[in-house]
């Protein structure tokens, strides 16, 4: 049997045993319920008519508003209060309308039935209005196409799938920041929770094997690094599955209930979050694993894990700072410190506020640190595993693995 075969078997055991443990099932279902509730409840409480006001400049805006309103209420019960109501407020020119939009008096501006101006793209409230307006404009255009006799399926499809209104924002091209920031913040929070949660699984798993002495049986036929690697892969996979599951539940809840409009989620933003989630998890899991090998009792485990937990807390706060000031000194310094990078970099990257070279350098530093830690931790782990009783000093563990 190959070395990796052994690692894989160890990983599978972790997945199987942790995956069906009560604590895992409970935390997973509670998380899923919580996330679903967070998404669904505001929508239920919201209810009623969603009122918005659109500023109109020039002509040709009225049919779009009417069509948008009809589309928005299309699925309502016959006697129910309409779920969407859009008022049109005429403005003299673009400037006055934009001032009103900026001050929040109106929610969007239609110009000559061909352009729509919103405060920002992808914000939670506005985007539902924006997409209604686009759909409205499309149906108006469709009527025109039909009236002109162009009934070819291709024409219809083209109209239906295009966004006929040109969209501009008041804040320019970085208008999506708020949403992307929100996504980054949510991802960051999840990462932080995951590092602590799964890191503690590592810690508890390693300490447990030591406290119930099963490690001596294992080590009689398996190498220490294989146990460490198998545990990291097993617990990591479960962690990522739970992480991905949480996101999936959130998406499902959003789609099934239509409670809130989905922020326009960039695939790149999500991929970036998952990538850094994996790096962050690896980094901390290796450290937690080594720490767990130093103690024989669960009561001592929290003490050795304390420094790691502090690092995670510090990383979290640094990245909150980075969220507020993604180009600031704190954010830049945090990018190059491997222990804060997994928290800071995804935030900066989501906000588009990190130069490519910094991103690459950060990945290189973090990966190099993980590799270095695997070597150091592997040795501490090997040295610490068979020393029972009181807490093993780092140096002792290092030395006893030397021979």
């Amino acid at each position, binding site marked *: 049997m190959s070395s990796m075969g*052994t690692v894989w*078997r160890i990983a599978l055991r972790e997945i199987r045993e942790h995956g069906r443990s009560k604590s895992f099932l409970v935390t997973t279902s509670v998380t899923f319920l919580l996330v679903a509730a967070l998404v669904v409840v505001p929508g239920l409480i919201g209810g009623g008519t969603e009122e918005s006001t659109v500023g109109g400049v020039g002509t040709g805006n009225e049919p779009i508003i009417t069509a948008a309103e009809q589309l928005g209420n299309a699925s309502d019960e016959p006697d129910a209060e309409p779920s969407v109501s859009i008022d049109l407020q005429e403005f003299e020119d673009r400037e006055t309308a934009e001032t009103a939009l900026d001050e929040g008096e109106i929610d969007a501006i239609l110009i000559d039935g061909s352009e729509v101006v919103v405060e920002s793209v992808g914000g939670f409230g506005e985007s539902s209005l924006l997409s209604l307006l686009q759909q409205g404009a499309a149906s108006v255009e469709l009527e025109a196409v039909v009236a002109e006799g162009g009934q070819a399926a291709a024409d219809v499809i083209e109209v239906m799938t295009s966004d006929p209104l040109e969209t501009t924002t008041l804040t320019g091209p970085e208008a999506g920041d708020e949403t992307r920031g929100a996504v980054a913040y949510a991802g960051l929070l999840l990462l932080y929770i995951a590092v602590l949660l799964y890191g503690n699984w590592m810690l508890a798993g390693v300490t447990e094997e030591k406290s119930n*002495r099963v490690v001596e049986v294992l080590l009689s036929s398996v190498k220490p690094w294989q146990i460490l690697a198998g545990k990291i892969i097993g617990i990591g996979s479960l962690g990522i599955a739970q992480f991905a599951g949480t996101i999936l539940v959130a998406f499902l809840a959003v789609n099934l209930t239509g409670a809130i409009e989905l922020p326009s989620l960039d695939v790149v933003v999500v991929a970036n979050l998952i990538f850094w989630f994996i790096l962050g998890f690896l980094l901390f899991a290796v450290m937690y694993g080594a720490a767990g090998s130093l103690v024989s009792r669960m009561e001592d485990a929290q003490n050795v894990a304390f420094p790691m937990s502090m690092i995670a807390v510090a990383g979290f706060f640094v990245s909150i700072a980075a969220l507020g000031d993604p180009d600031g000194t704190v954010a830049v310094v945090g990018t190059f410190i491997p222990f804060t990078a997994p928290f800071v970099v995804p935030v900066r990257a989501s906000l588009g506020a990190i130069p490519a070279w910094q991103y690459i350098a950060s990945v290189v530093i973090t990966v190099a640190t993980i590799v270095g830690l695997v070597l150091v931790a592997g040795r501490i782990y090997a040295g610490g595993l068979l020393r029972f009783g009181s807490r093993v000093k780092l140096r002792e563990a290092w030395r006893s693995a030397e021979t």
Partner: protein
Amino acid sequence: MLALKDLHKRYDDVVALAGCTLQVDRGRMLGFLGPNGAGKTTAMRTIFGLVTPDSGEVTWDDGPIGIEQKRRFGYMPEQRGLYPKMRAQEQLAYLGRLRGMDAKAASASADAWLERLGLADRRMDRVEVLSHGNQQRVQLAAALVHDPELLVMDEPFSGLDPIATETMADILREQAEHGKAVVFSSHQLDLVEDICEEVAIINAGQIVVEGDVRELKDAAPIRHLEVELDGEIGDLFDGLEGVRQIRSDDHIHTAIIDSGTDVRGFLSRAQAIGQLRHFAYTTPSLSDLFREAVK
């Protein structure tokens, strides 16, 4: 054949092994004895590389022991260790797989051992809910599940009731009969005497006595003399030469004497004192050998 050759190991000021040399052939069962702290566990751990000796070597069939060899060894550590939350059968199958068995064989072997040890109906119980004795049985199965060529058992009999002790002894004996090399450590000398042909006694990190139990006894420089009398023993033993030690309780008097001592006149002198209830002149017990060896 397992061979430990001139092993030395020192932990700071404590010498754990001081030239320990030992050999166990296939098909043989060796009882490994020694007082606490004599180096039994350390010596056993060196077989699995759990302790690296400062000098000396451990070989299997005259070759070095690597991971491939270790996968064909079975080990029961002194401190028992199993995953408490794992089901008994799955745990055994898992350990079988870690030692290179395929899934089907590992699972079948796990079931077979649970059946043999009377745990068939508890196979899907978590180890933590099993009684202490049953946990011990699972631990034994964990050492045997992959049908190892060498069995290394550290105090396998400690904490077992008489019936479990018998089962354990049967299985160890049977393993040796099947051509496995078996070595186990124990404090229960009477037990070792009953089940083992070969013993090695370690003291202060060195093997001080090694060999066939019967031969060792015959060759021992001492004999055991036991007398039970109605009446005061008085100076009965004073007439004997070469008395090393006398123990008395109420009516039973035991003396350890030199093996060359002439005891022919002793019996008649004892009979003169009172009704003789019990008289025995034997080779020393393993306990006597042990005490002699480690004193």
